[in-house]
């Protein structure tokens, strides 16, 4: 019975009709990438055809979330520096920006704050490709948006449970839906063919010690989520700290004291990161070159 509910909820959540639409170029690019002979130029060319999208990508990759000192002025350059997985995550996040800021107040701020914090965690832990960790933070709560869009009444009931029983959003989801956004995240990651690293971070950021294949990604996103909540930048749907997994810090090779430097970097860059939004009024191409 319970399984039936989950299956039907999964069907409803993934019913493509209502899923936030991703730009068509993403499909095209995903196909190109499957061919190992595809050049970066070819991918960049397809993305650059969509000028609004290119401007959004450049705005995001030039924010302190990714921490590149110089200005990245072209899509091709961003692909070389950050790789396609990161750019794909950036495209997905900018595509759901509107729907995210409308469906859950503060969730965009929470997500971009988590991206900043997760990237800082990865840098402190000296992990390779910290930008990919930033994307894990950026997308860690995507399931909440999709649930809000696809299951609006249940989404409302989750919000009510948060307020009336003083639950964290994740706990309320499990009480109301029987499963959390971590599960929805994993479905979405499959549906959108996201890389396994990002999928595991999205699916296991609430219990990183149980991540099977990429515990570093899950742990970094977990600690990033903890930090953005301590600073209360934006909102993941409730106003509580999440239990910090001691094991996650251990997996990352970090001590509690290592959080200090991460929090310094977070507070310092928050102002600039907060200006990264993608509303209709923000669609003007960035100065320089798209």
């Amino acid at each position, binding site marked *: 019975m319970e399984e039936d509910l989950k299956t039907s909820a999964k069907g409803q959540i993934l019913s493509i009709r209502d899923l936030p639409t991703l730009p068509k170029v993403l499909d095209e690019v995903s196909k190109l990438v499957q061919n190992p002979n595809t050049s970066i130029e070819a991918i960049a060319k397809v993305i650059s055809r969509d000028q609004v999208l290119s401007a959004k990508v450049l705005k995001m990759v030039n924010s302190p979330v990714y921490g590149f000192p110089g200005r990245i002025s072209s899509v091709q350059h961003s692909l070389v520096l950050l790789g396609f997985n990161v750019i794909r995550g950036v495209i997905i996040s900018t595509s759901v920006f509107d729907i995210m800021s409308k469906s859950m*107040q*503060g969730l965009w*701020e929470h997500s971009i704050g988590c991206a900043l914090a997760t990237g800082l965690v990865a840098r402190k832990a000296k992990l390779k490709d910290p930008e990919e960790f930033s994307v894990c933070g950026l997308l860690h709560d995507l399931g909440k948006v999709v649930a809000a869009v696809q299951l609006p009444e249940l989404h409302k009931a989750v919000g009510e449970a*948060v*307020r009336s029983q*003083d639950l*964290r959003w994740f706990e309320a989801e499990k009480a109301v839906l029987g499963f959390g956004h971590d599960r929805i995240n994993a479905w979405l990651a499959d549906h959108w063919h996201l890389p396994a690293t990002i999928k595991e971070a999205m699916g296991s950021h609430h219990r990183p010690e149980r991540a099977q294949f990429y515990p570093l990604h899950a742990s970094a996103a977990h600690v990033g989520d903890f930090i953005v*909540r*301590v*600073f*209360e*930048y*934006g*909102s993941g749907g*409730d*106003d*509580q*700290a999440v*239990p*910090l997994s*001691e094991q996650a810090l251990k997996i990352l090779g970090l001590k*509690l*004291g290592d*959080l*200090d430097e991460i*929090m310094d970097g977070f*507070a310092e860059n*928050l*102002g600039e990161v*907060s200006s990264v939004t993608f509303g209709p009024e923000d669609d003007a191409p960035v100065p320089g070159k798209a």
Partner: protein
Amino acid sequence: MQKIPLSLAKPGMKLAKPITKANGMPIIAAGMELSESLIDKLDGMGIDKIFVVGDAVAASQNPSERVLRLDHLFRRLDDPYMTQVKRHLREYFTIKAAADAVAATEKG
């Protein structure tokens, strides 16, 4: 000015826009400072979003504000490890706040 859900309203915040009834009649004027009892009253009236003065970034970046919020944030986390984590954060933000205060005095 920013629009926030009532659940994130805190005493001391100021209303940036008046609170009105569905028909537009104002009940509480802009500029009014929120208190615990006023927030409860708004909750009772079914208000779920309000406009407040200031910006979220400043509140997040202010270490004194963080110190004040820790007990609230950790209200359901009291196991030994989380108690240790909270103590660490309190020290961190207290030192930051003190450093800010010193910098402000030197400037002023």
